[in-house]
């Protein structure tokens, strides 16, 4: 069967994305630390709640508090850290860690932010950045000193098994990357294809191109709605509300309205030929509006969305190579499924057209 292979590929990719995207566990991480503020010069104990961790015995677990580049009298110091002196396992996800914090901080600011690093041979090493604020005790006021801050962070264990990154803010919703973001990527491809077919129709006048353009727009619009809903699910977790009137959400809603108007416009033209011509011109217009609405205006306003309002895009550390192994197939899979749906739609339209012609003689 000619033309079957890419449909099989689409199915396999979607199956892979759903299974891998939902089943692969997250890497271990630190969910919370209590208390969040420690005073220098004392033996201090903190309670740590982990995520997806398998703590067994305290002996093999090590923990560090690391100050990121402390400043001494205006000069940047070296990274400095202290090692825990005892780790007690309370449960597979709970630890109690004690540190002997030296009397003087190696920074002249009087306080410093410290990251908590935990190394467990079973789960590998993981970090909670800026977990704890260390304060210089007022009773022991004195000059900053690097003494006691020279622990080396070394011999870290690697985690075994395939995992997705753990990000405290996102937690399990990081998997939405494979659905929400892939849907928007494939929507851009489908809508671009629809606009290209619309332009080809305007140039050549072949009605087949218009049928393809309309079918691709239909599927693109459906993907846009799915993209919007998956985005709302994500926003409900990370931003607190499914709809917070963010500029990215508003502009997306407007873009979808513009595409909805495409179908209203087509439906309100009596003659098929006119509907095709007007629809094709409007389709190009709509695509030209889509780009600034989704990618330019949100960048110029304050927004919560990654890649907008000066935020970095979702990439770098958040999108590691394991995620890319699911994310890119996701884009291809969704695009192929979209093309498949569109093809079914335009083939039906072509058959209807043929029947109509035959009936008219």
């Amino acid at each position, binding site marked *: 069967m000619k033309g079957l292979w890419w449909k099989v590929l689409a199915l396999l990719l979607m199956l892979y994305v759903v299974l891998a995207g939902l089943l692969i566990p997250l890497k271990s991480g630190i969910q919370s630390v209590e208390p969040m503020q420690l005073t220098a010069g004392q033996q201090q104990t903190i309670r740590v709640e982990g995520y997806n961790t398998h703590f067994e015995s305290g002996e093999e677990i090590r923990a560090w508090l690391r100050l990121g580049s402390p400043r001494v009298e205006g000069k940047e110091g070296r990274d400095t850290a202290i090692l825990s002196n005892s780790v007690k396992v309370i449960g597979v996800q709970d630890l109690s860690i004690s540190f002997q914090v030296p009397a003087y901080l190696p920074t002249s600011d009087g306080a410093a932010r410290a990251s908590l690093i935990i190394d467990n041979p079973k789960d590998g090493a993981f970090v909670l950045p800026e977990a704890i604020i260390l304060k210089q005790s007022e009773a022991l006021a004195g000059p900053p000193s690097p003494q006691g801050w020279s622990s080396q962070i070394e011999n870290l264990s690697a985690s075994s098994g395939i995992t997705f990154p753990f990000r405290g803010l996102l937690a399990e919703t990081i998997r939405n990357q494979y659905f929400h973001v892939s849907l928007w990527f494939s929507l851009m491809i489908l809508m671009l294809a629809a606009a290209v077919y619309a332009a080809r129709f305007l140039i050549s006048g072949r009605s087949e191109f218009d049928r393809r353009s309309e079918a691709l727009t239909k599927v693109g619009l459906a993907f846009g709605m799915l993209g919007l809903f998956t985005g709302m699910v994500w926003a409900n977790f990370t931003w607190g509300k499914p709809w917070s009137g963010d500029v990215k959400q508003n502009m997306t809603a407007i873009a979808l309205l513009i595409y909805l108007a495409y179908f209203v416009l087509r439906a309100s033209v009596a003659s098929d030929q006119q509907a095709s011509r007007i629809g094709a011109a*409007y389709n190009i217009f709509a695509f030209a509006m889509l780009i600034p609405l989704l990618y330019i205006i949100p960048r110029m306003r304050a927004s919560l969305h990654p890649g907008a309002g000066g935020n970095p895009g979702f990439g770098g550390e958040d999108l590691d190579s394991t995620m890319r192994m699911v994310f890119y197939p996701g884009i291809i899979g969704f695009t192929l499924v979209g093309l498949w749906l569109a093809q079914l739609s335009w083939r039906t339209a072509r058959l209807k057209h043929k029947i109509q012609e035959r009936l008219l003689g």
Partner: protein
Amino acid sequence: MIGQIITLLGLEVRLEFRQRASLAGVLLFAIGTVYLFSLAFGSVEPRLWNALFWIILLFGAVNGLGRSFSRELTYRYSYYQQLTSPLSLYVAKVLFNTLFLLLIGLLVWGVLSLLFGNPVKDIGLFSLTLFMASLGLSLILTFLALLAGRVNNGPGIVAILAFPVVIPLLLTVVKLGAVALRLIQQTSTNKDLLLLFGVDLLAIGLALLLVPSLWKEA
């Protein structure tokens, strides 16, 4: 081409002066709305003043420009097709509609000032915003009017098509207006003006591309 545009623009202006139908209609709508507001609210604070001004301009534009091509697309269609290129007709319409909206905007500004006082602190910025808004609305709505000209229920369709497209423009314009009224402190005014300019440029580019093919067939 330029000669054609000037002739067509002159024709539009003369027809409007002779008939005064659309100008009078939109003006009546605008002044009626302002007057209703003054009856309902008594006094209007600057925030509401700003919103009121731009919303009246938007609805006036949709009402007034939605029927831009009602003459050309009916009985005179084939006559026009022999005489002019579609682009010069479109450009003439855009220029006329921009002037039309500027006039409406200035009159609404005057009436609002008369009834509620004039809260505009930065007159230069406000005028520039009004001009950019008129140009943008005129470019987009004239295009949509041509698109909807051959459709049943044309003006209704223009409203459906226009609102989503015009919202980003209107949001930017309302923000710039608020800056001109000193309601908000804004450092990115240039960015917003650039955005307006970009929308206008986009509309011009699309019109150049699409108007000829929209016009071609009856």
